[in-house]
């Protein structure tokens, strides 16, 4: 029978609303307002997980997002399951299920627990040291390591929830709604700053909201009472937005912050559907006020990780806020006064406190006196040297600490207990502060890192800025608000604060034991099982940089990023290496502060919204006619049009033959189109293309090759001169945006004197490319009044015409080598044009073909595709396209690079044709080409770039780049494949109609 440890009614817990939930298959009860952690503790469940490396039993340690141990799998086996969730942050609801991670078969009996007893064999760097040899065994090691590694399980079915993103702009963002955050938000909003305050918890007030220490008073009220009134007032202020359950994950430069707002995680499953689960707030704030508070430090002593050992502040929160006692026989272990507050809090509720063990030799504060008066035994100058209890703490052993704090003396006293609260002082939560790029400084006296150099418009207030006492908080907050927000007066000047002043502290990073260090387990990083002796071992092995020690020992590398133990790791390194902590620096705190779900990160950009895709105006026709599609850049392009159950090969063979024998039609709307106008347009084209443009007559088209400044082919396409100062350039489908960007760059930055204007018109026109010996007859049927004779409308020329009332531009250009027209109409008429062509072409068996056939047809002609036959290392000379380089032009982009020693090498890879000796074998694109089969290692001469079976030639053809290929015509080479070697011969890359007779056929 489990015990009920509810100790009093709390206003934050609704005891009329009883909730049942399951943990590790067993049903428990809690109340509305409980976290999974508080509800489990109320049921006297401490053991919730196993540690990562040694599988040691671990319990709930904290009450917040810094929790290293109590990380659970929520709703296991469902599509909403989530691993690595902190039980301290899960709000319970009816039907919630959760289970422990990293244990098998159960958390009570875990096979991996054997690692704990084998731990002498698992020192820091164990994996690095052990699995290094023999190298060939790595694959086997990896298999086992991967199976034993990892904490939770990711869901296996798709996420049913909706996630959202929102951009937020505000004057002031306040992070953290404790006392300082609330006051800062209040005065910011009251002074007309548009303010947003966020807090990760579901209630405002931080830890002050349950601060009932009788020695601390604000305006004669307890801090708790006083703050509740402030919060009431806050809710009515204009200009102020309050967001709870919202945790800031990242603080980037220029006050750009990412926060996750949790909207449905606390709701019952039936209430979760069709709602946004989590929202990523992308906040751009003019000023940021960090009020993130401080995290209590544990103390580092032997076996400091047993279930039942918790932070003293967490015990206090559980008792005051959740009304839960974490144990029935409590001990506190401290180096400062704050444990006495927790002890008194328990005492006042009638919970037994056995003793306080204090490493200091005294403290004069009233609260300590009060604890003494309550009859609680205080052991001054004592330390815990060991603890006992495997699955739950049952006793601690203490000894007297030497004056210098490095050893223990006297006899050992054993005290039985079931809960130990440790209080090692406070670490300001400066994680977000440093993420913003701001720099910390170590305060040697307080032994904490504090904000020092701000790089953005920000202030740190309250304990994250180093102010721990309420009077300091209010005084410094007042000053900072006045300075930073330019507020003249606040009511903060008049607040009367009484506090218990004592602030003495004795800091010992690693507490000594009577047992030698090598035989102890003083954990520094609880989640990753890094102990103080691991850190010392790393130092002995020569690691000095804190970043290296961190990686070697994995300290601070868990999902909690070492929020609890990082400072101790630094302290132990500093003590051992004999340097000052300020000189050592800290490791980098990286976003996210707490883990984010993938859903939150991607928001609505999933499924069909993952990326945009572009469709041509003829797309519906392609879909209706059962085209298969391929993605080209962002475009969906018709790939081939299978009929009667054809596969791709069969469809492409049929389409290719039809295009050459009668007529084919291609949707070429995706080609990039740039409208170029201005009195210097011709000069501009001269500079960007390798060939000459000045003499191109109006109404003529020309193919151009564009290089990068390094001489490598960048893009190609046909440009038409529409008028004296007006050109229409086409680019490759995938290169359109980059070409426009590059041209704009030159115009704006290198040649601003040129009178040239560029406009992208890719989406403005739809293009149907009509090709084949019957294309002329088809066009004639559509436009009867146009003279299509070779004299009037020769190859590489352009005419304006009308199809009915539709204005169109017709270019007689060819990418297939056939007689061919590209008809451009305003995009909205694209489908109409296409259907007209299909109708007119019916008697000629006009065949729609897709990109695959287009690629095959152009390969038969040896035309390159930039990006397929080139890869950013090919010059026009490498492509055997010397003819397109103007010898007369003084300069063009890339010209000088064509005469660099490297680009002039004879043994560069050059584009050639490749024929297989067996005409039926089609080479694989990307296959390597060699001249010797018996070399070891074999020398690669090049690779196949394009390869098809040509139905028009009835043989396999390929394009390839081969080192020195230009001078290897007829040479026999090999393409070695997995199972066979294919004999190939270098050939002319123009396989079909070498004399270009079909263009005018």
């Amino acid at each position, binding site marked *: 029978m489990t015990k009920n440890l509810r100790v009093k009614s709390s206003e934050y817990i609704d005891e009329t609303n009883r909730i049942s939930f399951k943990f590790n298959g067993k049903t428990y009860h809690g109340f509305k307002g409980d976290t999974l952690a508080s509800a489990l503790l109320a049921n006297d469940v401490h053991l919730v997980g196993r540690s990562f490396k040694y599988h040691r039993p671990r319990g709930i340690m904290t009450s917040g997002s810094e929790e290293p141990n109590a990380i659970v799998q929520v709703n296991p086996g469902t599509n909403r399951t989530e691993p690595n969730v902190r039980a301290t942050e899960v709000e319970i609801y009816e039907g919630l299920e959760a289970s422990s991670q990293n244990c098998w078969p159960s958390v009570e009996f875990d096979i991996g627990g054997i690692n704990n007893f084998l731990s002498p064999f698992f020192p820091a760097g164990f994996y690095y040291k052990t699995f290094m040899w023999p190298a060939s065994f790595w694959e086997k090691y990896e298999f086992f390591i991967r199976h034993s590694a990892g904490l939770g399980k990711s869901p296996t079915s798709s996420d049913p929830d909706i996630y959202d993103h929102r951009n937020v702009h505000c004057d002031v963002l306040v992070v953290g709604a404790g006392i300082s955050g609330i006051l800062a938000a209040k005065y910011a909003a009251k002074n007309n700053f548009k303010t947003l305050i966020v807090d990760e918890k579901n209630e405002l007030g931080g830890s002050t909201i349950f601060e009932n220490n009788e020695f601390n008073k604000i305006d004669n009220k307890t801090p708790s009472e006083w703050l509740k009134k402030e919060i009431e007032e806050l809710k009515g202020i204009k200009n102020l937005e309050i967001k709870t359950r919202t945790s800031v994950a990242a603080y980037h430069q220029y006050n*750009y912050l990412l926060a996750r707002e949790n909207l449905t995680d606390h709701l019952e499953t039936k209430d979760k559907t069709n709602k946004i689960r989590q929202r990523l707030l992308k906040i751009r704030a003019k000023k940021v006020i960090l009020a993130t508070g401080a995290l209590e430090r544990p103390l580092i002593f032997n076996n400091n990780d047993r279930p039942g050992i918790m932070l003293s502040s967490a015990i206090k929160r559980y008792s005051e806020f959740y009304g839960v006692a974490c144990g029935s026989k409590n001990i506190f272990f401290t180096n400062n006064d704050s444990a006495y507050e927790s002890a008194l809090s328990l005492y006042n509720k009638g919970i037994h406190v056995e003793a306080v063990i204090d490493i200091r030799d005294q403290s004069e504060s009233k609260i300590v006196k009060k604890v003494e008066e309550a009859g609680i035994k205080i052991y001054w100058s004592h330390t815990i040297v060991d603890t006992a209890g495997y699955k739950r703490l049952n006793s601690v052993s203490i000894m007297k600490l030497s004056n210098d704090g490095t050893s223990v003396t006297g006899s050992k006293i054993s005290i039985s207990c079931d809960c130990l609260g440790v209080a090692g002082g406070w670490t300001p939560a400066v994680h977000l502060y440093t993420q913003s790029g701001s720099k910390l400084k170590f305060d040697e006296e307080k032994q904490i890192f504090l904000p020092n150099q701000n790089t953005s418009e920000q202030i740190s207030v309250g304990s994250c800025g180093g102010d721990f006492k309420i009077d300091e908080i209010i005084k410094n907050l007042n000053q900072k608000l006045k300075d930073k927000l330019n507020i003249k007066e606040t009511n903060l000047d008049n607040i009367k604060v009484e506090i218990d002043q004592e602030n003495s502290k004795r800091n010992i990073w690693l507490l000594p034991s009577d047992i030698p260090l090598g035989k102890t387990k003083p954990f520094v990083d609880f989640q990753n099982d890094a102990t103080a002796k691991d850190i010392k071992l790393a130092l002995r092995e020569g690691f000095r940089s804190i970043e290296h020690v961190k990686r070697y020992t994995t300290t601070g590398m868990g999902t909690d990023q070492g929020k609890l133990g990082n400072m101790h790791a630094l302290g132990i390194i500093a003590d051992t290496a004999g340097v000052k902590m300020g000189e050592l620096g800290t490791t980098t705190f990286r976003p996210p502060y707490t883990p984010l779900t993938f859903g939150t990160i991607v928001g609505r950009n999933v499924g069909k919204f993952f990326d945009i895709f572009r469709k041509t105006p003829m797309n519906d026709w392609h879909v209706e006619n059962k085209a298969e599609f391929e993605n080209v850049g962002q475009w969906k392009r018709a790939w081939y049009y299978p009929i009667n159950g054809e596969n791709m090969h069969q469809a492409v063979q049929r389409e290719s033959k039809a295009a050459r024998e009668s007529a084919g039609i291609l949707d070429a709307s995706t080609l990039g189109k740039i409208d170029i106008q201005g009195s210097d347009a011709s000069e501009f084209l001269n500079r960007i293309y390798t060939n000459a443009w000045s003499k191109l007559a109006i109404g003529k088209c020309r193919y151009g090759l564009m290089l990068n400044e390094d001489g490598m082919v960048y893009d190609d396409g046909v440009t038409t001169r529409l008028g004296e100062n007006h050109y229409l350039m086409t680019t490759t489908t995938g290169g359109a945006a980059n070409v426009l*960007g590059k041209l704009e760059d030159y115009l704006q930055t290198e040649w601003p004197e040129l009178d040239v204007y560029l406009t992208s018109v890719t989406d403005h026109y739809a293009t149907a490319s009509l090709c084949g010996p019957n294309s002329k007859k088809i066009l004639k049927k559509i436009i009867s009044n146009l003279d299509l004779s070779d004299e009037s409308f020769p190859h590489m020329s352009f005419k304006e015409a009308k199809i009915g009332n539709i204005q169109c531009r017709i270019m007689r250009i060819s990418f297939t080598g056939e007689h061919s027209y590209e008809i451009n109409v305003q995009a909205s008429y694209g489908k109409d044009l296409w259907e007209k062509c299909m109708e007119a072409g019916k008697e000629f068996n006009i065949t729609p073909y897709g990109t695959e056939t287009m690629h095959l047809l152009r390969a038969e002609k040896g035309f390159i595709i930039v990006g397929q036959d080139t890869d950013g290392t090919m010059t026009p000379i490498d492509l055997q396209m010397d003819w397109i380089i103007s010898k007369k032009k003084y300069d063009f982009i890339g010209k000088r690079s064509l005469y660099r020693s490297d680009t002039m090498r004879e043994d560069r890879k050059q584009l050639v044709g490749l024929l297989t000796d067996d005409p039926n074998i089609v080479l694989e694109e990307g296959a390597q080409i060699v001249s010797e089969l018996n070399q070891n290692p074999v020398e690669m001469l090049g690779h196949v770039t394009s390869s098809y079976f040509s139905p028009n030639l009835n043989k396999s053809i390929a394009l390839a780049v081969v080192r020195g290929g230009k001078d290897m015509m007829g040479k026999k080479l090999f393409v070695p494949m997995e199972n066979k070697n294919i004999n190939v011969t270098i050939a002319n890359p123009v396989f079909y109609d070498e004399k270009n007779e079909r263009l005018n056929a």
Partner: protein
Amino acid sequence: MFLINCPYCGERDQQEFKAGGEAHIERPKQPTELSDDEWAEYLFMRKNIKGVQFERWNHAHGCRKWFNMVRDTSNDEIKAIYKMGEKPPSQ
């Protein structure tokens, strides 16, 4: 994520912009007169400064204008922004 003050549009989020490398590298007027080394200097050699750096930026998803930025690469502070063709501010 920077907040960049486009000289034509005003303050915009960094994701609207594209960085364009080091600024004030002028394309040689007479490339053919240059030796391989001199051409390589223009073509390949770029500084990678820790500290104040002059850079080109393009408001790619906005007005598409290029401009110059002076940025401290050690802390990403944007010290100045000026239009193409304008003189860089003296340090």
